[in-house]
């Protein structure tokens, strides 16, 4: 346990308001779990982690070249793209009109396009 960041006293003080510890106490106060339930959970989870750690230690070292995999999706990714066949003809046409309506209300501010890009005639200095 790394003592280089905080003193023992600071750690003890922090534990008094540690949300994980407080939440455990809250659940027990509400009668949802008792101490033996929590012990049982702890043991189960520790066993699970031990099993995974053991399997990881025992597993073969990865092939060095495998560091190049999974930058992007490889074939067989379960990802389901948009099903465009759901799009009905009549749903599509509306969009352009909405934009035209909105255009009429436009106050071209942040777009910056209201600012003329050409100065008044005869005004521009040559670089």
């Amino acid at each position: 346990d790394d003592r280089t960041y905080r003193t023992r006293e600071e750690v003890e003080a922090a534990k008094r308001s540690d949300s994980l510890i407080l939440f455990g106490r809250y659940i027990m106060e509400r009668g949802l779990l008792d101490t033996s339930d929590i012990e049982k959970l702890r043991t189960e989870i520790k066993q699970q982690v031990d099993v995974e750690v053991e399997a990881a230690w025992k597993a073969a070292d990865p092939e060095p070249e495998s560091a190049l995999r999974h930058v992007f999706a490889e074939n067989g990714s379960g990802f389901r793209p948009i099903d465009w066949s759901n799009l009905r003809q009549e749903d599509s046409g509306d969009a352009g009109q909405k934009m035209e309506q909105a255009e009429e209300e436009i106050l071209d501010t942040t777009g910056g396009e209201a600012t003329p890009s050409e100065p008044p005639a005869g005004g521009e200095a040559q670089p």
Partner: protein
Amino acid sequence: MTEKNVVQTIHDTLWDAMKADDRVLVMGEDVGARGGVFRATAGFLDEFGERRVIDTPLAESSIVGCAIGMAMHGLLPIAEIQFADFIHPAFDQLVSEAARIRYRSAGDWDCPLVVRAPWGGGVHGALYHSQSIEAFYGHVPGLKVVLPATPYDVKGMLIASMNDPDPVLFLEHKKTYRLIKGEVPDEPYEVPIGKADVKREGDDLTCVAYGLMMHHALAAAQRLQDEEGVSCEVVDVRTIAPLDKETILDSVRKTGKAMVVYEDNRTYGAGAEISATISEELMFDLDAPVVRVGGPDVPGMPFATPLEHFFLPDEEKIFERMRDLAKF
């Protein structure tokens, strides 16, 4: 087919996606009640309601952070950053979290996040409404960065971005919003992420460009043909990451001369990566050094008109560099 400008294309494509799939939602500053400062989400709040059109607080790290959580848990959030200049508080979320979700979980977790942001100058946006950000994020493996500049490409790549299980930064050059119009198919289609596009064929030199600069390059190439009889091929990068090296290298191999045009500060910009790639792989095919045309290395795009014009590469400057390269 309908003729639309870029922002209307974005609006309509987002609308279609929201209609097609309940997982899709939009979130960002002013996207709801105001309909977006560029009107990209006008009418959305009335149609789709508060749960799917979310007016967020002014807190970019939270906008992206919450969107990451939503994406990991089965939604398809389209987060908007009101101006790309504001995205920096969300840098940590994008780089340290979104880009790594799949990698750190060995593919167990998806992060199908889309972050949209208007970028670029030429609208008197000055320091905080004109920035280019593609280099910062193009550098990050695990993030896709796209910047289509025509309505056709915008719809196709926005759909591709929404269909992508990985996080995509979808950059929209704000000057193209109303300036650039084009024919857009009414039905959904994809333009693949990671594919550049030859927008104009040519034989004498290759000009690689993106965003507003791509449109200037096209105009300059036409002028080059008309006035000098020189034929310039224009390659629209479209995707910064993952970069389509093949299309770019094929073009330069054919013409033997390359220039890269980008509006971002020249030094350490995305054009530098493209330039280095060309130089590294095509040494014996090149008849001239690879030229970079970029913005000056100053901390922001000025507000004063003559200074903004000085900053931005325009058709005239690009034309002159093309002509010089052709003569090399």
